[in-house]
């Protein structure tokens, strides 16, 4: 019987610009990649220049950051460091109610406070102007913390004093905090504009016959798993400074993607993009939360600056950030797996409810991404997956490093461990047995490089897995209150396949130095250094000769960076550049895909790369491809050892090993640090970080850095990274990304190790002392 698959697809063309941006940025489209060409597998992609690692002179080495001098001396200019003599400072009064209608606002007293230059409420917002669908100042707040009134004053103290003089009266409306409640047909509507709380059509993916798969199974395991609400908490709070010079607007903003902000603000204010300059010289962390997302505060500073004719600065307080910024959304999952006695997977069934928060333009995608691991990681003939995104009166869901995958893979890998035990198999063997090593089962696109088996085998070896694991009867075998255990997990991710930004122009001024003009932010991966290294390697120049510009939309458009044809021309002088090589690979790949899709002969030179999108020049109606669509997956495994104190519930992670297929190591210093940072964030996700709402009032109670617990240096385990170089077909010099995959593994690895140590399976994050003690009690 032929296997049939069906995956819900999103119609890219019907998406709003915010949605498109999200899909592109996070490669979510890879999930539903081309059902159209599912019949015939694509040709295996061509390899990029197959040099052995030793043949490179610059890449693959440890290279200290070219921006390091500025960073260690405090000279690096972050947005928070922008001041003007006549600048005004903003403070915002926020809704204390999760859902309400503003009945009246009296700002008269605030306006009279000396030093106050402007007060705004929803009445002052131009009609129909929103921040990507979110109210700039709300008349119907949809979550606690929605901005209600804004004050611009000559200093922050006066602005704060003024907030207390604003009197707002509300009519309270019904609200709903929990997605599982909100999903129900009779639930209160989170926003009065909704028909129901479901965001978009539910995502569905089926393959084969799942009930037959379960009927054939010798073992069926099933569980309910939930993961918590998190905020990214980049150390630099969100902020922006806006300054109008007549009809030219400049915005300094902490951002991962200035071009996107420029485009959306320009559109909103009816300005040509050329009159909107957006600058983000250094960005103090983002993790997806600053990915060019439209936040009300950006519009607020812009409007207040226009109204007052002065530069206006709004540095959000930490609590403002928790309330206004995006969240890594909670996911409620049920997942069920069927196995043959020998460990063969016969069926996967899963349902995900993603809590999208208010207004999330991305809600439709959020649930689907949590199911990605279940769909692609293991070979299984029968699957049935469903995901729904649900609007609630909580923090707006967005994308945090790897979007929904961390939650999905946590649920899957927990259950794989449980199954391995019931099958009396080594958990490593069970993964190896079912590994999908060919490619996307639906699109039939082969992996652009595939080091998963190698990662697992080498990783387990390096960790001395067999020796340390000692078999299932070692579970909970330690004596004394503090017990040690090890855990394992595997992950095939659709993330991490995006190369570095490909929209750069390489200029070679007369003096022979090299300047890379690009719009990518400097945000923690020493991106500018990596870029310089690639260019330097390709051009055979010394690294010191290369400089890389910070993102400044005015500057980059002045040099005409974005058009691929121009890029070709500029780079053309240095034919052997890595950038061009990689770019060519990308185009060839995309061309072959479109040749099939469009049933005609598409040539690589008819394509152009523009802002991370590959488009088909002759026909603008063909929807652009993201890099993620053109490439495949990053692979990773993790082993970890930890300690569970069974008297206090405290879990201490001691030793983490992550083995990644990274295609090619460009800068060893950076890539290692990315894995380490990802591990720390992953451990925080697993053990401590928790954004908690008071259910009765909808008010978040852990919106500060004390109650919202992030890990510190003293919680850092030994972290070992193992890099498997498989020479990716698409990335520059065969490299692929690492930032996202590195965060995902710890949670499942830790949960499995906790079981190994103490015999308890925790299915709810974070695994804090409360959950550990409760589980121990239940077990006793």
């Amino acid at each position, binding site marked *: 019987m032929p296997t049939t698959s069906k995956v819900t697809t999103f119609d890219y063309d019907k998406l709003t610009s915010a949605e498109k941006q999200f899909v592109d940025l996070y490669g979510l489209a890879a999930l539903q990649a081309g059902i159209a060409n599912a019949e015939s597998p694509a040709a295996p992609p061509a390899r990029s220049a197959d040099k052995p690692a030793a043949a490179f002179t610059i890449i693959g080495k440890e290279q*200290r*950051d070219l921006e*390091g*001098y500025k*960073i*260690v*001396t*405090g*000279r690096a200019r972050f947005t*928070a460091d922008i*001041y003007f*003599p*006549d600048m*005004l400072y903003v403070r915002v009064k926020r809704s*204390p109610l999760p859902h309400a209608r503003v009945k009246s606002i*009296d700002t008269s*007293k605030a306006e009279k406070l000396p*030093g106050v230059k402007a007060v705004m409420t929803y009445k002052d917002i131009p009609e129909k102007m929103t921040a990507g669908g979110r109210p700039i100042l709300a008349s119907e707040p949809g979550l606690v913390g929605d901005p209600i009134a804004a004050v611009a004053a*000559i200093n*922050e*103290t*006066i602005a704060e004093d003024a907030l*207390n*003089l604003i*009197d*707002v009266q*509300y*009519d*309270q409306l019904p609200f709903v905090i929990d997605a599982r409640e909100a999903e129900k047909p009779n639930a209160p509507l989170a926003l009065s504009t909704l028909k129901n709380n479901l965001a978009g059509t539910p995502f569905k993916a089926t393959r084969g016959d799942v009930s037959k798969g379960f009927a054939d199974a010798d073992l069926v395991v099933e569980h309910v798993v939930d993961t918590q609400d998190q905020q990214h*908490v*980049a*150390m*630099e*709070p969100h902020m922006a400074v806006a300054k109008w010079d007549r009809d030219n607007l400049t915005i300094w903003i902490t951002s991962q993607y200035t071009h996107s902000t420029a485009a959306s603000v320009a559109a909103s204010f009816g300005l040509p993009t050329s009159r909107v300059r957006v600058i983000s010289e*250094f960005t*103090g*962390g983002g993790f997806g939360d600053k990915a060019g997302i439209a936040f009300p505060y950006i519009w607020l500073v812009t409007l207040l600056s226009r109204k007052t004719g002065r530069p206006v600065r709004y*540095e959000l*307080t*930490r609590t403002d950030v928790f309330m206004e910024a995006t969240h890594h959304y909670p996911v409620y999952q049920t997942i069920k797996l069927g196995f043959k006695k020998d460990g063969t997977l016969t069926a996967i069934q899963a349902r995900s409810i993603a809590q999208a928060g208010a207004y999330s333009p991305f809600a439709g995608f959020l649930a689907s991404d949590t199911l990605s691991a279940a769909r692609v990681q293991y070979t299984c003939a029968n699957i049935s997956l469903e995901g729904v995104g649900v609007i609630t009166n909580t923090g707006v869901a967005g994308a945090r490093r790897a979007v929904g995958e961390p939650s999905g893979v946590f649920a899957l890998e927990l259950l794989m461990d449980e199954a391995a035990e019931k099958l009396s198999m080594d958990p490593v063997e069970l993964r190896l047995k079912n590994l999908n090593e060919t490619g996307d089962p639906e699109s039939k696109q082969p992996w652009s490089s595939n080091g998963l088996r190698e990662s697992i085998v080498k990783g387990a070896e390096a960790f001395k897995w067999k020796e340390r694991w000692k078999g299932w009867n070692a579970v909970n075998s330690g004596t004394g209150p503090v017990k040690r255990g090890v855990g394992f997990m595997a992950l095939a991710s659709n993330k991490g396949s995006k190369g570095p930004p490909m929209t750069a122009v390489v200029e070679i001024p007369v003096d022979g130095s090299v300047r890379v003009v690009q719009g990518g932010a*400097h*945000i*923690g*991966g*020493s991106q500018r250094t990596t870029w310089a290294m690639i260019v330097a390697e390709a051009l055979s120049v010394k690294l010191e000769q290369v400089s890389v510009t910070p993102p400044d939309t005015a500057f980059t458009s002045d040099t005409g960076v974005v058009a691929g044809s121009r890029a070709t021309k500029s780079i053309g002088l240095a034919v052997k550049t890595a950038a061009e090589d990689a770019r060519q690979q990308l185009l060839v790949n995309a061309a072959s895909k479109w040749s099939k899709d469009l049933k005609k002969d598409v040539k690589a030179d008819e394509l152009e790369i523009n802002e991370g999108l590959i488009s088909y020049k002759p026909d603008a109606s063909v929807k652009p491809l993201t890099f993620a669509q053109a490439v495949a997956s990053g692979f990773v495994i993790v082993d970890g050892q930890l300690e569970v104190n069974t008297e206090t519930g405290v879990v201490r992670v001691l030793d983490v090993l992550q083995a990644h297929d990274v295609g090619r190591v460009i800068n060893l*210093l*950076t890539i290692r*640090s990315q894995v*380490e940072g990802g591990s*720390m*964030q992953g451990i925080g996700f697993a053990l401590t970080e928790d954004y908690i709402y008071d259910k009765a*009032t909808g008010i978040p109670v852990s919106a500060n*850095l*004390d109650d919202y617990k*992030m*890990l*510190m*240096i*003293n919680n850092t385990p030994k*972290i070992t990274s193992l890099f498997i170089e498989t020479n990716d077909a698409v990335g520059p010099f065969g490299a692929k990304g690492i930032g996202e995959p590195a965060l995902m593994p710890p949670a499942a690895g830790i949960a499995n190790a906790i079981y190994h140590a103490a015999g308890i399976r925790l299915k709810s994050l974070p695994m804090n002392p409360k959950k550990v003690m409760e589980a121990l009690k239940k077990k006793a």
Partner: protein
Amino acid sequence: MNEEGNKPGQSPEEETMDTRSTAVTRRQFLIGAGAGLVVGAAATAGLQALQPAKPVEQAKPAPPVQQPAQPAPATAIVEPVSGAKLVKLNVNGLDYSLAIEPQTTLIEVLKRDLGLTGTKLGCNGSMCSACTVLVDGVAQNSCSLLAIRESGKKIVTVEGLEQGGKLHPVQEAFWTQMGYQCGFCTPGQIMRAVELLNKTKNPTDAQIMAHMSGNMCKCGAYPNILKAVQAAAKQMA
């Protein structure tokens, strides 16, 4: 302690406290989520009682005159505003006299008034130490110090470490070991490490971790931060 900073600036008036609450009370939530319920969630809060004097605009004062630390009757005085007091600070070796309002924090003075923007604000609440500076050699959260109380103190910020074009060993080590990713928490980490190495030669790893433990890094650059402090310790031993 400095006389200037310690004497009462002006006699505070007696004020009545307005305790009307802006807060959500029980009734609204106990009555539940019925639509159309009319409640006054926010009443005017208690500032009416105060009569703030007209503030003088001083968002960014004229750059204070900088003078070498010795000898120095500091002369540059920013025009005093209501409630403000004259405060003398020595920052990175330069003496300043500034008129400072009671609620102004040290980080605001450093960044906004003195243009020393290297110090970073992460939480404004003593919960991240991104704002660490040295005050008389002790690492402090500059977001949680009232500048008015630090009169007469010697402040060192990250800008004050490089001497004669030569980086401080801790700076050098943070760069070489890449003890950062985005770099936002880095000035604070560096100042904290300088405090440690000024008083402890050859610290153990456990000492380093304990000392650095309040400095949050969401990028998770901790392993390299440890390496950087170890490397700097070797240099400074």
